[in-house]
């Protein structure tokens, strides 16, 4: 494991775009006036003919992406997750997913981890809004290397894909050449007492939580559930069967996101004790990313505490 280096997951987005653009002439990139922020401006610098900045008009961007896909291109549409999914959701639903088009959506600024920008710019509902769409796949990488891999996986897949990434530095978990497959979870650590199922920036928190639990004699499994849709049912059911306890951690609302997805599966296939580490039906707030995550209980300590509660039989 690369260790303690920190890098924002968003940096992997443009690395993936550049790789995809060099590999495939059909790749075009659409921006809505935040390409300097999310990094995709580097694609525009290398491929000026294949980069379209539509200005602050997300609905037009999404509809245009549909048109470009109809013309045979593979558009990557990126801006902050709240806007790319929220503002343009109807276009995403009816003009992208209904037609099953090859449009790839990059959602930046995931979760309260955005920090100082505050609630308006912290995407907390985007997993719920995308995973409910027929045919949509949802990838939530845990570090920048996985984000790059998620972009390449999105290019490989047919149809619409949502790739969710964050603004602020997080520990690197994966090497630079990591690959990612939709529908496959990654069991980072094995353990039979409790399973910590996490996505995005919460994966590194879950890894820390595992260490805390280990000191108390609790063996926690850590599952990076990058692919929220499709879910790796096999890995989840196996974890539920072996541990009987799942703590699901995500920087997202506790409704409709990863916890929702995992609950839907576990309820019908192998009921287990479950707990959610997520934002509890509220909006975010300003503060440093670390402070805000603490404020909302999105920390390794909170994950470990919930895991201990489950061990004691409390929900």
């Amino acid at each position, binding site marked *: 494991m690369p260790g303690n280096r920190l890098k924002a997951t968003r940096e992997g987005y443009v690395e993936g775009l550049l790789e995809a653009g060099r590999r495939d002439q059909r790749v075009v990139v659409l921006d809505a006036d935040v390409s300097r922020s999310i990094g995709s401006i580097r694609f525009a610098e290398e491929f000026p003919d294949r980069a379209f900045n539509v200005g602050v008009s997300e609905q037009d961007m*999404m509809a245009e992406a549909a048109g470009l896909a109809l*013309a045979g291109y593979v558009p990557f549409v990126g801006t902050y997750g709240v806007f790319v999914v929220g503002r343009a959701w109807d*276009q995403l639903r009816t*003009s992208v997913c209904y037609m099953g088009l090859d449009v790839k959506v990059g959602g930046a600024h995931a979760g309260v981890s955005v920090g100082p920008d505050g609630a308006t710019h912290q995407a907390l509902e985007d997993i719920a809004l995308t995973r409910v769409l027929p045919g949509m796949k949802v990838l939530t990488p845990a570090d920048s290397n996985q984000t790059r891999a998620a972009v390449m996986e999105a290019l490989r897949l047919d149809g619409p894909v949502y790739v969710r990434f964050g603004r602020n530095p997080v520990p690197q978990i994966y090497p630079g050449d990591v690959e990612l497959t939709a529908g496959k979870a990654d069991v980072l650590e094995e353990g039979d007492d409790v399973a910590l199922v996490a996505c995005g920036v919460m994966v590194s928190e879950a890894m820390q939580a595992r260490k805390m639990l280990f000191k108390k004699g609790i063996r926690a499994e850590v599952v990076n559930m990058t692919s929220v849709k499709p879910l790796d049912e096999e890995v989840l059911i196996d974890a539920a069967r072996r541990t009987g306890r799942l703590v699901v951690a995500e920087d997202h609302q506790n409704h409709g996101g990863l916890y929702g997805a995992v609950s839907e599966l576990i309820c019908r296939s192998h009921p287990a004790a479950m707990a959610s580490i997520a934002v509890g039906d509220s909006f975010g707030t300003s503060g440093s990313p670390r402070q805000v995550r603490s404020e909302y209980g999105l920390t390794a300590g909170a994950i470990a505490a919930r895991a201990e509660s489950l061990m004691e039989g409390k929900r």
Partner: protein
Amino acid sequence: MPETEDLIELARTVRRDVIEMVCSAGSGHPGGSLSVVEILVTLFFDRMRLDVERPHQEERDRFVLSKGHACPALYSVLARRGFFEPSELLTLRSLGSRLQGHPDMRKLPFLEASTGSLGHGLGISVGLARGLRLKGLDKRVYCLMGDGELQEGSIWESAMTAAHHRLGNLVAVVDRNRVQLDGRVETVMDVEPLRDKWLAFGWNVAEADGHDFDSLGEGFRRCESENSPGVLIAHTVKGKGVSFMEDTCLWHGACPDGDQRKAALREIGGAENAR
């Protein structure tokens, strides 16, 4: 180029189809379908470069029906142009039919896009126009919108983009029938001054009598240019051709009963076709 007399007869056939289809389905949108008949006939039988034998060849003009609820007219025109058998028209809106209540290009592959949520079609067309230009294809994209649809803010986002990038291969048509579901456009939410709005957004603007083939042809010629997108404001009558449906919102989404169907077909005239 087809004779105007032939186009007039085609329009009559399409109007009969619209009435028969909506009656067969028991629901649909006759008002806004009848107002776009001459526009569609002009495009599919005169202006657009299409090959019925090779409907998906890259070298073709594209048409996007942004006002998707007018699809009975589009289905009829596609069938009459030879893309599929007219007998299929009467399956409109029924379970298993390719002719969905709003256009579904995955079911009916001769459609360029699935539409029905208003305000999307122009953006899709801008993307298509950019894509064709990027590929070096000298082909046009035509997009037909309703006048009530212009109340969608997304239309104006796309209007700005098209002009900014000088998409001369994009032609929009506004079906200016002045009536929307809830009432008269000027009462519900006025879109005037329409010509000035499009001019201010940087488009070539032409106007035409949307039920006159010569006027439509001349209008298209005037609004198409190499350097900027064009919009044709086609002045039409909602429910055109059936007196009791004309210029009223009551037939936006209503189905004629048996007597009304007979009366409508009698007024439209022409030979029986769809049934």
